[in-house]
């Protein structure tokens, strides 16, 4: 803020731990090391966190360079409150399995819905076949 009063900037967020939500739904957690005018981010010691229900799993990923337009939001993580979470951390294999199961149930539900609509002569355009906006 001392650089540009009245604006929001990522300059003050450098070298702090951030949670970044991407447009494809991934959640990345890492130290923000560098930015540019497009809000492209360089994340260090990044971990991809997968949440399923009350469980989560961290997949260490190393260094990420994220193109700015793919970021939905990002926020600084309070290091003290970070561990103060009701969620339960599980192993990577377990969370991936959970995720797979969740995807499957979602897909099946979706299929049923589409079938039901089709039976009634309606169709809803699916989000993945549509441009994002």
């Amino acid at each position: 803020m001392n650089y540009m009063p009245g604006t929001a900037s990522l300059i003050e967020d450098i070298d702090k731990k951030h949670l970044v939500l991407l447009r494809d739904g991934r959640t990345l957690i890492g130290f923000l090391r560098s930015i540019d005018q497009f809000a492209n981010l360089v994340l260090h010691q990044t971990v991809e966190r997968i949440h399923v229900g009350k469980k989560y799993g961290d997949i260490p990923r190393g260094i990420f360079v994220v193109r700015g337009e793919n970021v939905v939001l990002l926020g600084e993580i309070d290091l003290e409150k970070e561990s103060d979470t009701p969620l339960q951390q599980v192993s990577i294999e377990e969370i991936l399995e959970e995720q797979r199961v969740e995807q499957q149930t979602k897909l099946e539900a979706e299929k049923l819905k589409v079938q039901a609509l089709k039976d009634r002569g309606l169709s809803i355009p699916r989000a993945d076949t549509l441009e994002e906006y």
Partner: protein
Amino acid sequence: MATPSRKDSHGAGVYLPEANNALSPEETALEQVCQPEKIKCLQGSRLDQGSGKSHVPSALEEELVSASQLEEEELDPDLAPDVEEEEAEEEENDLGDPAVQSAVHNSQTLDHLAPLPFRPSLPSAGSAAHHFGPQLPAPDPSLLCSPPTSWPLRLSLPSHLTQLHPQHQRILKQQQQQGRPRSPPAKKWPQQPDSYANLMTQKEKDWVVRVQMVQLQSENPRLDDYYYQEYYQKLEKKQADEELLGQRSRFESLKLVTPYIQKAEAYESVVRIEGSLGQVAVSTCFTPRRAIDAVPHGTQEQETAAASSQRLWVLYRIEKMFLQLLEIEDGQQDAPAQPRDSEQRSSRVEKLFQALKAQGQNNLEAADDGFLQALSVGKGKALVARLLPILPRDRAVSLLLAITRHLPFLVKRDVADQALQMLFQPLSKCIRHLTFHELLQGLQGLIRLPPGSSERPITMVLQNQFGISLLYALLSHGEQLVSLNSSLKEPSSDHSAWTDMVVLTAWEIAQMPTASLAEPLAFPSNLLPLFCHHVDKQLVQKLEARMEYVTVEIRS
């Protein structure tokens, strides 16, 4: 990646805002409980870190002593659990039976703890230390943190807390004890020095900021960045007011100042090279490729004066005039005072007025046509409504007279929009400045029988809301002028014209069936007396019937 443990954070963030606050008896028991807890936590953490330094400042000790003296019992059950929590890392969920047992056990040991208000930092010192020994088993902290459930009599925690679920209470108390030391200034030193810090050098950061600033620069910040400018003005005003009231010392809040960078000279968007066919593809960052020449330039050909292009031309004119009007209004807002500016402003206003009165495409049209065409469009009416207040008197009057002259035409054209209403306010303000002569001119237009028609325009005017309101406003003003200025009462051509007009108007109103009389937007109070002066009683009665019907409508 390394997650700093809670212990570390406690150790590092030695900040006790509460410790320095005097403990007043009025403070809730929980408050009192919490402070010693916090202090215990710190000590606990130091213990764990093995730093043998007894950092307990004397102030703390005093606090602890005083706290303990005030509420001895409350201290004790919470002494243990917090330290335990620090030591036994993340065991939070167990409220099992073993806990109950230890609770019972603890209650017996409490009496021993009472005289010892604090726990010294050195593990070897103090008899308090070994009291915590038997309490080490993990389940204890969870239960001990929720003493109210086990010892309702011993403790006097505030009732709103005792009703909560024990786990909830525990979380709340944790938050309370951990929340405050963490609050600003939380700019504590990093737990371990970050070896990857400053990968982005200061120069690079400045570069990014510069680029962002360049993107922000503008020649007209009030236009481009309206909300920030307004906000900043309000902020400054508030600060100035507060400073005036002496409430706070002046401090400047920073304003975003973008660097001024010379704007690149205007580029040629369309390059025409002699001998080439069409346009050459000249691309800049603003126009990658300008393919079509969409802006009309050159003269409009006379043959294309079809109705649609005529209408387009009118719309185009209105847009241009609106831009001029907005410029004038902006100037008005920003710099009200300087005389040089006001000259410039009045010349702009005059230019706008001329543009309004200007001709259409063919110069064969009648004098007022340009103006009337503009008025036929809703946006044109809005333009005139906004322009009238800033026009000088004579200009405004000429517009008003033009409107009254052509009122039937305008009314007919307005049936779709019903937008003439917006002109009423500014016009009624203008009417108040009319001279008697001008007023007569205005009214004459309505009364006079146009050639080739047996109906006076006034008939149609009375049926339209705007028309009738305007008429009433004119009559009312006339009556005011006459009553105020006795010279006008003398018999003169003006006065007789006035009388004729009034009589005629009254007659026309009386003729009109009440149902088709439009409801005026405002009903001046001096109209009925005016009519009373000039017409006979019978007519007055008829008029009254109609007008009162109308006034009742307005009032209801």
